Structures are given as C-alpha cells and as structure tokens.
C-alpha cells in the first residue's frame, strides 16, 4: 500500500465493538505488524454516578478529530487509524471512545494512539455532565490541568 492512509473517524450515539473494529483494520492484510487500541469507558466514581451525558458540537467534532488524526498520519508511518467517539447518555461500564492505530512496528502505533487521545481530550468539542446515583442531572465535568499538560508533551504539534 502506498500513500497516506485516510483515518476512519466516526461520531455516533451507538456503541462500538472493539474486536470488530480491529478486524475491520486488519482483515485480509499482511502488512500490519502492530495494533494498539485504547478504549475509554464510563466510570461510576465509586457508586456516585448513574450515567454520563455527553454533549457534542455536530460537524466540528468530526472535523476536529479528523484534523488531529491527519496530523498523526503525517507524523507516524501508520497502516490504519480509527477514532470513534460516542455522544448521548452513557452508563457506567459502557464505552465512550475508541482509538485504534495500526502500523508495521509497535512504537508508531503506541505513540500515535497516545497522541490522538491526548489531543482528542483537550480539542475535540465534547462535554461531559454527571448524572447522580439518585437520577438527578448534576455538574458538568471540569477540564483538568493534567489533560492539558499531556497534550503539551507533543510540543512540536501546532495546528493552524
């Protein structure tokens, strides 16, 4: 396969199947030597939460994750890259986000997956709101300093 791959970016309410998504990237191919997956799940915060509600900015969510994914494709020799982010009401234990990076060797796949997640957290237009165990809509989750710092690890990545 020659040329840059095209990232598969999906924003959806529906759940995803991690194994099926890996197969979609690797089936029938013999050039992939490494696949790294990251799945982000909803926690119940020690029983405090009954659900998370994810609001997103339709259109920009796809556009922004695609921009980050294309930057990853430009930086690492990838054979495939998938990013799926869900929105709507998500229950503890359920999937929120999936990133799959495939490459010939492991380092590129590890780094690209980590890079994509770091920027997705600080730049993709999604907002989480907590729903309490008693069913009431609660606070919006606050952005963390740690997430912002993580995105600065990749310091030579400047957008626009």
């Amino acid at each position: 396969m020659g040329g840059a791959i095209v990232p598969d970016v999906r924003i959806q309410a529906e759940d995803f199947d991690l194994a099926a998504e890996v197969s979609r990237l690797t089936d029938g191919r013999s050039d992939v030597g490494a696949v790294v997956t990251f799945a982000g799940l909803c926690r119940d915060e020690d029983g405090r939460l009954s659900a998370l509600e994810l609001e997103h900015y339709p259109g920009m969510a796809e556009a922004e994750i695609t921009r980050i994914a294309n930057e990853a494709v430009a930086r690492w020799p990838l054979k495939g890259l998938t990013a799926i982010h869900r929105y709507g009401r998500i229950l503890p234990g359920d999937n929120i986000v999936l990133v799959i990076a495939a490459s010939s060797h492991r380092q590129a796949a590890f780094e690209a997956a980590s890079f994509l997640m770091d920027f997705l957290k600080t730049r993709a237009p999604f907002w989480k709101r907590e729903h309490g165990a008693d069913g009431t809509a609660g606070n919006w989750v606050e952005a963390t300093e740690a997430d912002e710092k993580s995105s600065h690890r990749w310091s030579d990545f400047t957008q626009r």
Partner: protein
Amino acid sequence: MKLKYFAWVRERIGKAEEDIDLPEGVVSVRDLLVWLRARDDGYSEALRHPEAIRVAINQTHVDHREPVAGAREIALFPPMTGG
C-alpha cells in the same frame, strides 16, 4: 451570523443558538464576548470569566484576538471534557 452555545454556556445563556447582526465596533472575539456579556444576566453569568471561554469560528478553534468579520458561525463553549 449564527452564534452557537454548548454545555454550561448554553444553559446559562438559555438558548443553543441565535442569529445576530454584529454591532459596530465589535472586531475581535474578545470584543464579541464583552458585547454579549452586557446583554442580560444570563450572558453575564455565562461569560463572567471570558478568558475561560473557548471559541470556534466556522468550526475551527480560534483565540480571542481572532477577527470575527465574515464569520458564518461562531461557537462559545467551556473547555472540552471528552475522551
């Protein structure tokens, strides 16, 4: 131009989107935030700390110095918490 609001910015302002005519003298994103803040209590509450508000013009992140002239769609929202 169309303004869009998300998460607690949307809740405090009390609407998800609206169309506005840009007033004279509103040049940058920063000017827009200052002008909106003076409209009523909801805007004032939503934009009390303008430096905390993230802004996208035509679905691309911009900083507060960005000119707003000619923008089709401007979105205001809190720092993102996806992933």
